[in-house]
């Protein structure tokens, strides 16, 4: 005891210099020893001991080294244990899915000619692909890193499964029916699995699932039996995605494209509750109705004036990759998860929950949930009989059902006089003669587009709609709707009664802000929708675009826009900002409407009929129709002609437009300016096309123009 103390005393100076532990000991012993105070001054003064010299030094060195060595050993052991524990956990969890990653690797390598070959390649491939594991909330990156060492540390067992697998693979060309692989995996892996550890057998069945989306159910039972994995027929959803887009509409698709363009190899996951991949909505109320193809409801393709055809889907299915392949995709990709609704959003934890309780975490999230068509209260209260005969028009399925219904009934009534209502009325009106269908349109305003067009133009438009075969009932407020003798009776406030077979309610859109509550996001009380800033950001990792976004427009103030081009522009912008661009909403979006083939307009900015307007018109000629515009510009949809503006040279020769007869009306073509405090905030190009850039410029400038006729000259309205 005493000896220790003396030793420590001598060591004090050196110990203090080398380790804290030693120091503490010294202090402790020092407190009990009266000799210490005497030693202390010596300690501070020199590093070498007063006496004893070299021997002491050596002794001290050895002890010091031992202490340090001990410390290092302890540290390493603890860390190693930790690591091993983590490895073990990861290995267990990744077990069922690991080989899923190997298999996709084989087709990517085309045909592995030699059996051993796939193995080394398969080994690294689990690294990036790791294991899509719904049960594992933790990010997959560490899993992947961990999985790799496991693979390499267990080559002998791993060999066999791979070898077992690859003959399957190489024997049959990857394109060959996956069917062949299916019977073999069950038989081979089962014995193998009992002896071998993880991935192989279960994974055998996995690749089948991964490769052939058509047969996900068959391998699944194997998985379930073997590993207690996901429920049969459910696709594996990645538990983490760098970019998550909630909603599968126009804004979402535009954002996905933008992200992929700017972030090489980006992995984008779109989650939508619709059964379809992203598609464009305008043709649903316009071009699709004018198609002569009887199978249009299936193909959803439409032929345009010049014979060009396209689908309403932005991209064919081959553009997208499967959700479960998203993690492993070398160059990233866009995956669409259809039929899944996001029900809960945890902003703090950066994750969302689906309606099947799957959780997906994200780095950056876009909310592009769009909206749900509004309904009239009188209809909602009228009971199920009435609801069954009512269509709220928004999606592909609504188009399909309305098309079907309209062929089998005698009378249809559209409630609502805005864009959608008027377009559908015109579309159905064209069918009215063909199918002996009475088309009625009713709305509270004085004329069609009453909230958009100044009164004189609204009246003119209403006449146009009437000539399309529609019975227009203006200043109509619906009081009640009842179902009598299998017909609907609509009673208006002024007493008029309308009997019809089916109702289409086009009375506005309710923005979908269901996630606002769980996410704690602000909802705008004036315009509805999520409140976001000029850069479309709601929170640091959350952006909102499209119909659901109430954003700050630097030029025009806070607003919410429900148009197609806005969805494209805002989606693109959100995608850019999600990849670090930090740009505000600046490029003004436009919108358009066609009321039949003879009249159409394009508009930009705030186009509200309550604002003072200045309209500058010229007389229209036969050449001023949307039909002629498309023929001239060689595009089918005017929506496309904007993009291809400069790239176009007229393809078709200008065929004379059908003789539209004499224009009794004066508003053939022109420009209408909407003013707010003497500044032009909105412009309508009435039957004047391909001049949107000029209109955009005028709005962007935000100048006060003394004479708007001079501004109108910029549009050359008299020219074609």
């Amino acid at each position, binding site marked *: 005891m005493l000896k220790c103390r003396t030793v420590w005393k001598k060591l004090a100076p050196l110990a203090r210099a080398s380790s804290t532990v030693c120091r503490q000991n010294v202090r402790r012993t020092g407190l009990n020893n009266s000799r210490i105070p005497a030693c202390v001054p010596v300690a501070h003064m020199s590093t070498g001991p007063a006496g004893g010299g070299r021997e002491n030094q050596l002794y001290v060195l050895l002890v010091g080294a031992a202490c340090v060595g001990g410390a290092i050993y302890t540290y390493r052991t603890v860390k190693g244990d930790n690591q091993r524990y983590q490895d073990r956990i990861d290995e267990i969890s990744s077990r069922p899915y690991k080989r899923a990653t190997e298999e996709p690797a084989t087709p990517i390598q085309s045909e592995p000619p030699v059996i051993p070959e796939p193995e080394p390649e398969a080994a690294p491939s689990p690294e990036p692909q790791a294991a899509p594991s719904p049960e594992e909330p933790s990010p997959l990156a560490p899993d992947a890193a961990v999985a790799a060492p496991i693979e390499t540390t267990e080559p002998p067992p791993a060999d066999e499964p791979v070898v077992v697998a690859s003959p399957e693979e190489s024997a049959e060309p990857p394109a060959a029916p996956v069917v062949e692989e299916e019977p073999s995996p069950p038989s081979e892996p089962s014995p193998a699995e009992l002896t071998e550890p993880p991935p192989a057998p279960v994974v055998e069945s996995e690749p089948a699932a991964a490769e052939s989306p058509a047969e996900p159910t068959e391998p699944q039972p194997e998985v379930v039996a073997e590993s207690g994995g996901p429920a049969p027929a459910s696709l594996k959803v990645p538990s983490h995605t760098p970019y998550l887009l909630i909603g599968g509409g126009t804004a979402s698709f535009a954002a*996905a*494209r933008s*992200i992929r*363009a*700017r972030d*090489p190899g980006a992995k984008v996951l779109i989650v939508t509750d619709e059964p379809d991949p992203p598609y*464009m909505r305008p043709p649903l109320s316009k071009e699709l109705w004018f198609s002569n193809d009887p199978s249009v409801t299936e193909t959803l393709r439409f032929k345009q004036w010049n014979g*060009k*055809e*396209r689908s309403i889907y*932005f*991209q*064919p299915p*081959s*553009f997208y990759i499967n959700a479960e392949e998203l993690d492993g995709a070398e160059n990233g990709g866009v995956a669409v998860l259809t039929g899944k609704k996001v029900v809960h959003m945890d902003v703090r934890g950066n994750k969302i929950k689906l309606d099947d309780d799957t959780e997906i975490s994200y780095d950056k999230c876009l909310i592009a949930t769009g909206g749900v068509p509004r309904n009239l209260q009188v209809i909602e209260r009228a009971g199920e009989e009435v609801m069954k005969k009512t269509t709220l028009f928004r999606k592909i399925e609504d188009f399909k059902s309305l098309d079907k219904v309209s062929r089998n009934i005698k009378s249809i009534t559209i409630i609502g006089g805005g864009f959608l209502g008027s377009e559908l009325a015109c579309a159905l009106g064209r069918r009215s003669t063909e199918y002996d269908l009475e088309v009625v349109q009713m709305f509270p305003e004085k004329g069609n587009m009453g909230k958009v067009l*100044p009164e*004189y133009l609204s009246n003119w438009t209403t006449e146009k709609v009437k000539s399309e075969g529609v019975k227009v009932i203006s200043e109509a407020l619906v009081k009640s709707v009842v179902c009598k003798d299998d017909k609907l009776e609509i009673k208006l406030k002024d007493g008029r009664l309308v009997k019809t077979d089916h109702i289409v309610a086009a009375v506005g859109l309710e923005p979908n802000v269901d996630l606002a509550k769980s996410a704690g996001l602000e909802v705008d009380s004036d315009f509805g929708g999520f409140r976001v800033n000029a850069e479309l950001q709601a929170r640091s990792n959350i952006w909102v675009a499209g119909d659901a976004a109430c954003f700050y427009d630097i030029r025009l103030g806070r607003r919410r826009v429900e148009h197609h*081009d806005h969805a*494209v522009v805002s989606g*693109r912008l959100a*995608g850019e900002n999600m990849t670090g661009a930090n*740009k*505000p909403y600046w*490029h*003004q979006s436009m919108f358009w409407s066609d009321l039949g083939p003879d009249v159409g307009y394009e508009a930009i900015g705030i186009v509200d009929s309550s*604002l003072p*307007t*200045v*309209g500058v*018109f*010229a007389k229209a000629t036969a050449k001023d129709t949307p039909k002629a515009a498309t023929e001239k510009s*060689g*595009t089918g949809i005017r929506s*496309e002609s*904007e*993009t*291809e*503006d*400069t*790239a*176009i*040279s007229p*393809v078709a020769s200008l065929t004379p437009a059908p003789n539209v007869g004499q224009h009794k009306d*004066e508003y053939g073509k022109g420009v209408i300016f909407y003013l707010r405090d003497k500044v032009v905030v909105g412009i309508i190009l009435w039957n004047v096309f391909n001049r949107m*850039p000029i209109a955009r*410029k*005028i709005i*962007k*400038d935000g*100048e006060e123009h003394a*004479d*708007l*006729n*001079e*501004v*109108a*000259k*910029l549009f050359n*309205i*008299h020219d074609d």
Partner: protein
Amino acid sequence: MSYCRQEGKDRIIFVTKEDHEAPSNAELVADDPNDPYEEQGLILPNGDINWNCPCLGGMASGPCGSQFKEAFSCFHYSKEEVKGSECIDNFRNMQECMQRYPELYPQEEDKESSQAEASSSSVSAAPTEGSALPPETDSTPATSTSESAVSSDSTSLIDNQTAS
């Protein structure tokens, strides 16, 4: 004869062609070409390629996006006498990739991609893509100045839009 009429808060002006012949004296604010907020064309002010240009459609973002970017970048920065002559491999990769997705890149792209290699305009790549992925209804007809001359390619852009 032009005349004007007022209906409440709305003013209506009818103009004859002659009255609109005189050039406008309306003043427009000069555009700043380096405005960071503005939508950029295909080539950014610093010379880089704007992969998000609507004119490219989905070329840079599709399944063959990375191959396309490599090929096009190589071509763009090529200083050879025959521009892009050292990029043959990149273009071949791109073509191979595209052949794996015939639905997205219809087979007319064979002649398009050879045009892309031969022609010195960047927009020739756009028709290759444009044929398969019709541009979105975007309001930006953005193209760089060098492309404006390539009307023949643009024509094929339209022709090729008969999607599969």
